[in-house]
């Protein structure tokens, strides 16, 4: 995300240098326009007066010197209300934590961008490139959550004038979350000029969020009216807040008419939200199911098809996750694509390790499934410790690509996170590919032949040893791919595999050993069951119930959900 924004910002900053010359000419029309909001910012009046007299350098020096939240609030207001051409860039940088100052005397306010040797800095005053400095040569202008909220509003107000619909939409959404009366003129002006319906809806909400605090009842009722189409959580929060009673039974909202109108809108909202909750729960369940599917499907091959009780399966996933980490180290500037590269890489790494394990150890143990348990358990210990020795026992951070972050907001009550969505799709793709390989390719045919009747396959001229290695490699490789997906959800550390191995075995056994469809149905149904139990029973009990259910289910169908039929079942 950073890299995508650097270039336009650079151009913008360069333009500012030119503008700087004209800075003195422009006068503070914005400052006089703005309505000062006394309640929120105590000394805003003085700030505006001062900014008319203070130069850019002086205000920046004040920003660096400010220590308390209120002092910083003052200075930020001064910058926002000033006509400094660099105001928006500076506030933006401040919001994103890219505004630093040097240790020189007097200190210079700079923009800093991460650089392998520290930071690459440029002057906040005129955008001049100041080269690269070490990590501890500059200090950050720190802000806290209160200031972040303030900046969010101020920047959104500025961004309303942007050309891009997306920027305007985001700005309108931010204004819903940081309402303040001083933004009202800007919002109203934007509503008058706005062409996009989507932005307009959000702007109306933002307007409502401000007007709801107005003194006039009509304005407030109109605001509530505007809320009736939304499920936005901030709006809901606001309306719910009106209904809160204090100890004496007085409502937070003293105006009965307004309160009742709000209550009615709120009731509708809650009813709708209830409905979406079920959709959301199903989604949560499917996404948990798809994680289970990804972690189990590799095991369904090594354990289900080949009969190897592969305790190192979890460590194959761990290797996949570490591969993702290494790929990100190799290509730090292309985080968005690294994950695409990581998928085949993880498949190869885990697959190769799998083949080595098969050739080195498991080959000698066919027909003795329980021995494979012991040997692979030993392998899993070795792999864990190897990772600890190579990468240190600490967890590694894998950055989420921008296209996997955030969520798809369908409405205020229902939003589906992208990473989960992609993982559901991804797991289905992996399953489909695997089925294709097993059912439609020649290699798959050989694999099935060898697992069904080794001696017969051998006498038909199939090189069983080679096929075994390939099958085990395939299962391990898929575990590696699962590791890539897990790196987006959880810790990348030496214990990663351990936390999924038991669940994986449960899924395979529940679905029926040797049946990929069984694995699919088992994973999805366990995921959904877990998620529908969780709200009532809590996370731990839900999991215990699911385990007990599996134990009992196996009594009923001792060969799992989809048992294989045929003579070779009774071994």
């Amino acid at each position, binding site marked *: 995300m950073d890299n995508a924004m650097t270039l336009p910002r650079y151009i913008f900053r360069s333009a500012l240098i030119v503008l700087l010359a004209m800075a003195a000419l422009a006068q503070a029309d914005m400052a006089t326009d703005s309505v000062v909001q006394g309640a929120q910012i105590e000394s805003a009046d003085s700030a505006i007066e001062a900014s008319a007299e203070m130069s850019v350098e002086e205000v920046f020096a004040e920003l660096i010197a400010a220590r308390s939240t209120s002092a910083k609030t003052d200075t930020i207001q001064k910058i926002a209300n000033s006509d400094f051409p660099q105001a928006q860039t500076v506030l933006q940088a401040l919001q994103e934590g890219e505004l630093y100052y040097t240790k020189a005397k007097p200190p210079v306010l700079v923009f800093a961008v991460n650089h392998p040797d520290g930071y690459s800095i440029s002057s906040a005053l005129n955008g001049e490139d100041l080269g690269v400095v070490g990590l501890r040569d500059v200090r950050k202008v720190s802000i806290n959550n209160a200031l972040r909220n303030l900046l969010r509003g101020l920047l959104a107000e500025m961004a309303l004038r942007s050309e891009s619909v997306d920027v305007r939409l985001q700005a309108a959404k931010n204004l819903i979350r940081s309402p303040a009366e001083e933004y009202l003129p800007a919002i109203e002006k934007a509503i008058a000029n706005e062409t996009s319906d989507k932005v307009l809806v959000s702007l109306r909400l933002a307007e409502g969020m401000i007007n709801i605090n107005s003194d006039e009842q009509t304005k407030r009722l109109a605001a509530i009216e505007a809320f009736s189409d939304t499920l936005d959580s901030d709006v809901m929060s606001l309306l719910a807040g009106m209904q809160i009673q204090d100890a004496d039974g007085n409502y937070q909202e003293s105006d009965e008419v307004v309160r009742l109108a709000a209550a009615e809108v709120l009731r509708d909202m809650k009813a709708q939200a209830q409905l979406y909750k079920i959709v959301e729960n199903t989604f949560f369940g499917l996404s948990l199911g798809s994680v289970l599917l990804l972690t189990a499907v590799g095991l369904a091959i090594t354990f289900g098809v080949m009969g190897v009780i592969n305790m190192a399966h979890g460590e194959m996933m761990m290797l996949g996750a570490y591969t993702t980490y290494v790929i990100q180290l190799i290509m730090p500037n292309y985080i968005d694509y690294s994950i695409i590269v990581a998928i085949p890489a993880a498949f190869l790494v885990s697959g190769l390790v799998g083949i080595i394990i098969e050739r080195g150890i498991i080959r000698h143990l066919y027909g003795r499934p329980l021995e494979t348990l012991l040997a692979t358990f030993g392998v899993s210990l070795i792999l864990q410790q190897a990772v600890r020795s190579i990468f240190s026992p600490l967890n590694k951070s894998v950055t989420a690509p921008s296209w996997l972050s955030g969520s798809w907001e369908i409405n205020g009550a229902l939003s589906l996170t992208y990473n989960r969505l992609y993982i559901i799709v991804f797991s289905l793709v992996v399953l489909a590919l695997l089925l294709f390989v097993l059912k439609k390719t020649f290699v798959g045919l050989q694999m099935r032949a060898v697992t069904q009747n080794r001696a017969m396959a051998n006498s038909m001229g199939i090189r069983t040893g080679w096929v075994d290695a390939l099958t085990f490699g395939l299962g391990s490789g898929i575990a590696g791919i699962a590791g890539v997906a897990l790196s987006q959800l959880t810790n990348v550390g030496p214990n990663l595999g351990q936390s999924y191995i*038991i669940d994986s075995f449960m899924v395979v056994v529940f679905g029926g050993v040797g049946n990929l469809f069984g694995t699919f149905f088992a994973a999805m149904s366990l995921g959904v069951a877990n998620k529908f139990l969780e709200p009532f029973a809590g996370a*731990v009990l839900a999991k215990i119930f699911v385990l*007990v259910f599996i134990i009992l289910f196996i009594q009923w169908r001792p060969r799992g959900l989809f048992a294989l039929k045929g003579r070779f079942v009774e071994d």
Partner: protein
Amino acid sequence: MSKFDDVFKQSLIGRLLQSDRAGTWLLGALLALAVLVPFFNLVIPADSFLHLPTYLVVLMGKYLCYALLALALDLIWGYCGILSLGHGAFFALGGYAMGMHLMRQIGDRGVYGNAELPDFMVFLNWTELPWYWYGFDNFFFAMFMVALVPAALAFVFGWLAFRSRVTGVYLSIITQAMTYALLLAFFRNDMGFGGNNGLTDFKDILGFSLQSDGTRNVLFVLSALSVAGAYVLCRAIVSSKYGRVLVAIRDAESRTRFMGYRVEHFKLFVFVVSAMLAGIAGALYVPQVGIINPGEFSPVNSIEIVIWVAVGGRGTLFGAVIGAIVVNYAKTYFTGAFPEVWLFMLGALFVISTLYLPKGIVGVVNQYRERLAVKNSANKPQELSS
């Protein structure tokens, strides 16, 4: 002397051990340990070279508890083909039963001085003792529970599983599910078993301080005798007619069933006996290590038990004992001497022993002896082998 010898020979133990040379070794060593360890620890003065430090007594006691646990597993896995990946659960349940008794023995000597409630309940604002803690202040009730609780769980679980003919890996995986579910349950603080911290800070047992060397030696001797007793019991089971059926079930379950044996009854019986032994092992373990916590339910622990048996030699009984002691001694030694890389060694030990010692340590010894026997062309009876 010879008269005594005859009596010995005709006694049950004597008859059992007649064809079991390794068993005689083992029992002899256990009994000798039971006598000599207290001697070297208590009688020999502390500054003497021959003095046995107390921590070694406790350490060996712990190994013996593990040995008992391994024995329990070998009985079902080695002789009946039931691979339980959840035997740690029975061990832990026995341990918890003992731990609950020891907790109640603390009485008002806890930090809050509450005579009724254990400390962890006091600071979580529990007001009264949960019903399932009743009776555990009585030693005999608690000892009864040590065997009964694991046995009851094994009975219910086994009755369900064996009746439905759940076998092989399916059985292994659901035993794993069982211990995992118990792990999660015992981690919950709401269960009233102390959550993650488990039960600890024990003071004494039957009025004897757990810190005193005397109590420790008694516990050690009890552990050694329990292993010896359990060995004799297991040997008696497997060398009886009943044991033959067990082996038949292991080798060809369907055929045994077709011959008219009620396979599930045989399996259930031996499974329950094994769970009781595991429970007793847990009960002996807790006062010696001073803590029981849900970590004992962890599936990895149960897998480790299987590994002890496999390293020692499956289906030999004494192999299980040897395996438990060897692997745990290796662990103690490696974690102290090579703290950074010991997992490599342990992992390699497992891999190498499965690849090159398919019958475990006992198998190697047997092989060597057989070769020796062939060389000497002696006509000795064959060792018992799996």
